[in-house]
């Protein structure tokens, strides 16, 4: 065999031996459906995946003209702007506190990490039926009652939008422990010597040390955590669906794009053309945000 195809020392051959199986699978099970979706977005594809009626960009104009879709994008932006900083702050706070513990450190780390084992289905059951149950035997309403307040229908009240409290706390509970572990790992890597030097310079333990040493040293970890949080927020579906959907559909509030697309494309009015067009728009937005974010954090310039 000509060596230029195999590369020096058969390296190209070995490259494909290692990556080939994965790449083929990715092609079949990710890229084929992806391109299929892309194609569907240009067809009138109601109740069929092999449409024949080409409609050009009309699915795109109609999905972008649908106020339900555009408002779902807004909903999602609000959610993202809230959940990402909140999860980051909570994880960081937990990590800092656990890191300074001398006693029972493993115990507290376990306690905060344990929710990672729960599924969104289970967590939604607990949140919806026990914690934020809208009637008198829910825990939150029991607590309100102790203070003489009336029960609140947490998930059915849009003024004020209490449902956000439920949605955000469920995700905080499920995620914070995992990111706490990542940040703990980052804290372990900060050289002791830096703290000793700071102490010599008279920096007060606490806020000053945090601001000038811990936080800057955590930068790589923080960037990683925020990126992961944003990617996860893009995929948000399970808790919205499990908390708010009913047998008859989904309320028009707190409806993120994936929930909208799920109902449009997979519901009884199975409109795969519109659904795919919306999905393409969403994927483009996600790509754009990711690129902007990467620039913002100065990634892609040089390996750290």
């Amino acid at each position, binding site marked *: 065999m000509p060596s230029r195809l195999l590369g020096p020392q058969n390296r190209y051959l070995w490259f494909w031996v290692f990556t080939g199986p994965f*790449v083929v699978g990715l092609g079949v099970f990710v890229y084929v459906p992806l391109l299929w979706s892309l194609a569907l977005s240009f067809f009138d594809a109601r*109740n069929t995946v092999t449409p024949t009626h080409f409609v050009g960009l009309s699915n795109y104009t109609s999905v972008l003209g649908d106020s339900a879709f555009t408002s779902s994008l807004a909903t999602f932006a609000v959610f993202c702007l809230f959940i990402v900083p909140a999860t980051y702050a909570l994880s960081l706070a937990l990590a800092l506190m656990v890191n300074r513990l001398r006693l029972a450190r493993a115990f507290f780390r376990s306690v905060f990490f344990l929710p990672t084992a729960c599924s969104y289905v289970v967590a939604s059951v607990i949140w919806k039926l026990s914690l934020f149950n809208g009637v008198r035997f829910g825990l939150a309403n029991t607590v309100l009652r102790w203070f003489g307040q009336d029960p609140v229908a947490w*998930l059915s009240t849009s003024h004020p939008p209490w449902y956000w409290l439920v949605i955000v706390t469920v995700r905080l509970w499920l995620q914070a422990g995992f990111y706490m572990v990542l940040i703990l790992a980052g804290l372990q890597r900060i050289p002791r010597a830096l703290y000793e030097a700071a102490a010599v310079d008279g920096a007060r333990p606490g806020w000053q040390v945090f601001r000038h040493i811990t936080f800057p040293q955590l930068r790589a970890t923080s960037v990683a955590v925020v990126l992961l949080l944003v990617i996860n927020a893009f995929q948000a579906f399970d808790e919205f669906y499990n908390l708010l*959907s009913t047998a*008859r559909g989904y309320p028009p509030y707190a409806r993120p794009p994936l929930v909208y697309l799920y109902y449009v494309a997979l519901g*009884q009015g199975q409109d795969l053309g519109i659904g795919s067009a919306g999905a393409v728009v969403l994927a483009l937005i996600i790509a754009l945000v990711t690129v902007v974010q990467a620039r913002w954090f100065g990634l892609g310039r040089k390996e750290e």
Partner: protein
Amino acid sequence: MTTSEPTEPIPAPTFSRRRLFTLGAGAALTAALAACGSNTGRGSGSSGGHGAPVLSQWYHQYGEAGTEQAVKRYAAAYTEARVSVQWRPGDYDRQTAAALLTDAGPDVFEVNGPTLDQIQGHQVVDLTHEIAAVRPDFNAAVLAPKTYRGKVYGIPQTIDMQMLYYRKSLLTAAGVRPPRTLHELVDAAHRLTTRNVKGLFLGNDGGAGVLGGTPLFAAGLELVTADGRVGFDDPAAAAALAGLHTLYANKSLLLGAPADWADPSAFTQGLTAMQWTGLWAMPQIKKALGDDFGVLPFPAAGNHGRPAVPVGAYATAVSARSKHVDAAKAYAKWLWVDRTDDQQDFALSYGFHIPARVSLAKKAAKLRTGPAADAVGFATDHGHASPLLWTPKSQTALQDALTRIIQGGADPSAQLKSVVSTVGSELSRVLKKSGKG
């Protein structure tokens, strides 16, 4: 984690045999997959032992105990084919919609439809011939939405209807009489509300989901007129919907109950004095409350109003992609046309449903007295089914508007205007399609 370039020096570009190896790896992968088989059941739609086809039949998950065993019993008695019954939890409409796109879907399935798009997309087959002999015996109101251009695409199984249940003792204690108008309903709910008990339960979303078109029917309007136009472009509609917001604003509605409107728990546990739920819940309510309850239709709204209850039917349909369409049709006919005893048992032995066949409904002793008889009367006199032209998109538009009006206090006229426009364009779309072919 970064998204930067790899740090290795990149060798000069040369041609590779990537394609060849890709194919080789693909073959290896396929072999590996074949080895990891372990089929967990399901006779892949092929033939059974002695040339008898294997049919797969789907039901959504009924809440009443015993229903699953019952439908499996019916299927087991069929001799012309082996029927494998699948009991589907979760979002049934979406599961069937996805499955109908493939060969792996059901042969025979019950459906809260079929929808016009499913019919126009040739996903379900024509069953007119199967029910021809007994067609007049089916309840006309629920058969109509299964009929498209004279052909029947689903055999109605049972009639489901919903109505208002009220606790007699609580109404008496509060000095409230059973409401006959929407105005009285609002007033009654308000007066029945105490610190521990709410006046009315219309579902955890405040009624938008379960009520749907019912308040419009009660205002004397329709969803779609006989000539295919929007039926609620009328000020009376806005007035009726404004009444629903008052219920919410008065804090008379129970919200956030652990079980939604379809389950009578909130009513039987005393969380609410009145609840909107299905006829199917009556046995449970009777067991819990004895005679301490009565039933009403949704009360008339406005000057031209009339009482209304929604009726509908799950229907049995046959997938056009079934490999055994004829066998599937024969089975559907056998169970839902010929086997009247099974139909009777299915309708009445587990929950309460009205048999879709008029002759069976008349025979049902359980439906002849008390609140059950009232319910049958409501269904006959005040029943409205969603027409076939009422597409899921129209339904979503109305439901979204209802939520905004009820919970958000949005202006009913403005909301209805946008619903009218959405429904109008849906109607012209489906009518144009049916005009074409």
